[in-house]
């Protein structure tokens, strides 16, 4: 059964130095507050996994919390580069970053294989592309029935997966709505998991029998952090701050302005500060 705890406890209990950590959310429901708590608690030597490392991983890389990263698209969506990620890869600042790069299809399949307790994933992928030449974890497998040669990648099995969701009930059952990305697969593939939520309610009342619910017994810790996905968004609660994503380009371009931003908005801040972004619950939420 999931324990409902503070964010500080959830991160303290589940994230250890050197862990392989997946913080997922495909543009939507990115667990920013939890990522900031990981930085505040000074976790180091993390191996980060995420399909679309955007601003949150730019921040973790920029503070030097990561030794490596497995990913498939590392940019600021619609804006351009992740400057801290680029500085780490191009100039090894603040430390070298070991990278393992895949395509989205391979990452999605690898999470699914992890959730399915399989050692690897197979896909019709990477044909004619150069990534297999630079990533030794992209191999091939021959179909025993047809002889077709397919791409194979290892399953993703994080030590801990962290996601953000709309709400949980008091037992810790979690409902996720909207663009659901790979969050379910990432949680089920991991040894431990943290889910931060916009609200905790008496009755979950999933809107459909097919709603995406993660049961309490498949989650390690749940923390109530309203606004915890800002500047990404929570469908039914608050919109994506595209202006923040555009503004991040300037902040992250320079090492000093980045460090000043981290001090003011992460090191000297608290999870409760995210609540100001939570807004009013609009009618679309059930």
């Amino acid at each position, binding site marked *: 059964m999931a324990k409902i705890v503070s964010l500080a406890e959830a991160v303290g209990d589940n994230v250890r130095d050197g862990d392989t950590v997946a913080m997922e959310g*495909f*543009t*939507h429901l990115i667990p920013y507050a939890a990522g900031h708590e990981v930085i505040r608690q000074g976790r180091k030597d993390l191996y980060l996994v995420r*399909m*679309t490392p955007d601003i949150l991983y730019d921040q973790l890389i920029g503070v030097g919390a990561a030794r490596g990263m497995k*990913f*498939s*698209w*590392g*940019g600021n*969506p*619609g*804006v351009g*580069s*992740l400057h801290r*990620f*680029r500085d780490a*890869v*191009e100039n090894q600042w603040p430390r070298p970053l070991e990278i393992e*790069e895949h*395509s*989205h*299809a391979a990452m*999605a*399949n690898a*999470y*699914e294989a992890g959730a399915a307790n399989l050692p690897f994933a197979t*896909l*019709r*992928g*990477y*044909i*004619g*592309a*150069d*990534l297999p030449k*630079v990533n030794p974890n992209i191999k091939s497998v021959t179909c025993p029935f047809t002889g*077709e*040669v397919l791409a194979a990648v290892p399953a993703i099995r994080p030590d801990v997966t962290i996601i953000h969701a709309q709400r949980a009930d008091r037992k810790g059952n979690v409902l996720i709505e*909207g*663009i*659901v*990305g*790979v969050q*379910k*697969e990432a949680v089920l593939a991991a040894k431990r998991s943290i889910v931060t939520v916009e609200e905790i309610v008496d009755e979950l009342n999933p809107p459909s029998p097919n709603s995406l619910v993660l049961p309490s017994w498949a989650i390690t810790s749940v923390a109530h952090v309203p606004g915890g996905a800002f*500047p990404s*968004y929570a*469908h039914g609660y608050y*919109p*994506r*701050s*595209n*202006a*923040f*994503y*555009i*503004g991040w380009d300037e902040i992250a371009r320079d090492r000093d302005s980045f460090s000043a931003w981290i001090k003011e908005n992460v090191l000297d801040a608290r999870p409760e500060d995210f609540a100001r*972004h939570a807004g009013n619950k609009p009618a*679309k939420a059930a």
Partner: protein
Amino acid sequence: MSDFTPTEMMTIAAARALSNDDVCFVGIGAPSAACNVARLTHAPDITLIYESGTVGTKPDVLPLSIGDGELCDTALFTVSVPEMFRYWLQGGRITTGFLGGAQIDRFANLNTTVVGPYDHPKVRLPGGGGAPEIASNCGRIFITMALSKRGFVEKLPFITSMGHGEGGNHRERLGMKTKGPTRVITDLCILEPDPETKELTVVSIHPGVTREQIVENCGWAIKFADEVIETPAPTALELTTLRDINARTKKAHQGDKEAA
């Protein structure tokens, strides 16, 4: 209607490549603008799919990211990312993929990964995302990007997604049954692969553009087809539609500045 920019011409020429029957996997940026102009003009029933899992989406403003809430709010349905890539893309359900890129070569291979050596890149670009499998699994591929010497290069430092590889029947030799890139729409002209060699060849030149401009802005010795036509200028409806959606988008993306 004579007053339009090269970028507007590019987006509108790209939009015209799409039809009502297309099920289109949409890349962010220029492809997204073109696909939505098509939907708002001549192809109202086109199915637009973004890799975040939104299927049949009809955004009122262009998304900044591939997963803006606008896409989910206006979609017929939304699936998980593994389902998107496994059932819909790899399953062969998508007729057309629409991609952009940082660099392209004469066989329409694309690079969005690195400039310089992979291990010590001069410029680290975001990477491939969905492109490698979009390029191989969609029925055909359209590409849109501005023509420039930096973008249209003799040799790519890295092949992020394969177009026609080394040319000729390279795709077939690798077992691919899809067509690959069939059209590249730039701000100066439209290119299509030669039927035999698969080398990108100019087939249509935008109004007011000269052959010399095209030659000067391409990093390889670009070829022209035997018959080259002039791209029809944007119509009033096309221009108004594009400008309106761009204006709505700009307003929406800046509107939340206070919150940031």
